[in-house]
């Protein structure tokens, strides 16, 4: 385990976004994935001896609600988008099978609300994905996380997956890439964002020949190196690596920001992401089996 992650794991097994904040599901999932178990295994099996991993998995299992969804943190009281991340991380680590089963069932039963398209936001209203929280709109990032989680568990053909594919492709920006929800708003064509595009590309890596996916890869190849954000570059390195692209420059830029004691910017989430990106393409847990 990287010294920064080892130092910042809380006694309860989870990680906060920052070293001095309480445990949250998202950084815990990323850190769980970033802890190397064996040097060269893509979906690395969990080592039963690794107490840190087991404690992290136990924290995630404890964050699960009776309906199978996961809270974002202990103070939370309703399940949300972090259910997908936990399912993905635990699947890739082969941990907490009962927690995974319940999370998968919740994901498949949970769908974003139907929202009609209108003159201000034009999209295919017949297809839906997942919301961030509650019975609200389809948003692209939580939809991508849900797809990743379901696919990592071996589910490739399902009406929910097919519908989510159509939703993501429908909302892609014609020039390549994705914004947050739509590709247009009040008559304005929205700009793609590297972070969102990278996460969605990971979720659509099994549709590599789809023209809109290829355009997004092109966009990300050009945009990612220009981003000043280590988070955007981290996700981009993972996504581009999954598509066989050269990510050496992105890895070099992230390596230059990684410190042994402070990680990247004293931020657990960013550090875990950078560690994952630095391991790609040799070990990329986001590469679907």
């Amino acid at each position, binding site marked *: 385990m990287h010294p920064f992650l080892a130092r910042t794991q809380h006694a309860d097994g989870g990680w*906060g*976004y*920052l070293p001095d*904040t*309480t445990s*949250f599901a*998202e950084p815990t999932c990323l850190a769980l994935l970033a802890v190397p178990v064996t040097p060269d295994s893509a979906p690395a099996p969990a080592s039963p001896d690794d107490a840190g991993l087991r404690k992290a998995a136990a924290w995630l299992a404890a964050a699960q609600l009776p309906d199978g969804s996961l809270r*974002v*943190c202990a*103070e*939370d*009281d309703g399940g*949300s*988008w972090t259910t997908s991340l936990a399912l993905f991380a635990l699947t890739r680590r082969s941990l907490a099978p009962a927690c995974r089963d319940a999370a998968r069932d919740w994901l498949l039963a949970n769908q974003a*609300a139907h929202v009609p398209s209108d003159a*201000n936001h034009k999209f295919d209203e017949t297809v839906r994905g997942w*919301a*961030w*929280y*509650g*019975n*609200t*709109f389809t*948003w692209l*990032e*939580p939809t991508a996380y849900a797809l990743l989680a379901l696919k990592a568990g071996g589910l490739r053909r399902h009406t929910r997956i097919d519908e989510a594919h159509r939703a993501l492709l429908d909302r892609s920006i014609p020039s390549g890439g994705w914004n*947050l929800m739509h590709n247009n*708003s*009040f*008559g*304005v064509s929205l700009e793609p*964002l590297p*972070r969102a595009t990278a996460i969605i590309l990971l979720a659509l890596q099994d549709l590599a020949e789809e023209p809109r996916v290829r355009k997004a890869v092109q966009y990300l190849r050009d945009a990612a190196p220009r*981003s*000043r*954000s*280590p*988070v*955007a570059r981290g996700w981009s390195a993972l996504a581009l690596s999954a598509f066989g692209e050269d990510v050496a420059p992105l890895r070099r830029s992230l390596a230059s920001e990684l410190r042994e004691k402070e990680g990247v*910017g004293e931020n657990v*989430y*960013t550090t875990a992401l950078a560690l994952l990106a630095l391991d790609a393409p040799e070990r990329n847990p986001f590469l679907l089996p």
Partner: protein
Amino acid sequence: MPERWTRRQLLLGASAAAIGASAGKLLLEHARPATAPGPSPFPDLPLARARSPVFVGRASSYGEDLSRVLHEGTTALGGFDLRGKSVLLKPNFVEYDPSRPVNTSIPVVIAAIEWARRLGAREIVVGEGPGHRRDIDEILDETSLRDALREHRVRFVDLNHDEIARVPLRTRFMGIDSLFFSKTVLRTDVVVSLPRMKTHHWTGVTLSLKNLFGTVPGVKYGWPKNFLHFHGIGRSISDIASTIRPGFAIVDGIVGMEGNGPIHGSARPAGVLVLGPDPVAVDATATRVMDLLPERIDYLRNLHGDLGVVREDQIDQRGETVASVRTPFAVLDPFRHLRRS
């Protein structure tokens, strides 16, 4: 039950029932009873039990001494006591687009830091939870806010990824009884809202009250905070503002945004800073500067008489008159009813 609650008592210690029962007692700290109720052009907006001062100061460019404008304005308002208090400066950094005045300008953020220091604040933190970009690093670096805060030795808190706590809402416009907020927001003594003066394609205008969406954690409600949209933006603003109760507002209207705000509108220089301890009155005045009618904005109407006042005859205007700085802002067609003429 005490007659006057502190923010901490309100937000961390009080039960929902107690808060609801005490709502009628919570008047503006800087209010005094109305003495001369006059006729209102909108008689359906009742006379509130308070009056509020608002200062409008001219600043034609960001190169001017904005700290001086804030200092003179605060003096004209009768002062504002931050001695020994922790202060959260909440600017609006919703997106990054170098070609448009989307965010609060850096010089105004710096001037607010200097203003709070001069008023004796014990601790100053700048915090924001952008509604669009999750990636706060990108915004901090691209806007140069990170460099500015480092230079002025002020800590930044990402309110989207902060620790969270569920808080009972003081009002029920959304139809729910509680929301999660960032703990930094809840722990601070005084929240100062620092928005850019902009029109908004869903709410008409976005000023110090709409800016409070950034106190609600994205980690819980997403990007954007769609849960709030789903309950109605105006209703959400009303409940959030009446619960968070910002202690001061400074609107950056030196260069505002008109048309398809809050992100894709056009620059509209108004050359003003609008400030005061009553965020409702500040927003109402800023709306009048934009040559729009605050009495027709749903969330301002909701908050009139509770968090602050909207009626012009209940606002003690200091500094420039609204008429002398009025700058018509274009609005999208669904908001044409906000136009004064």
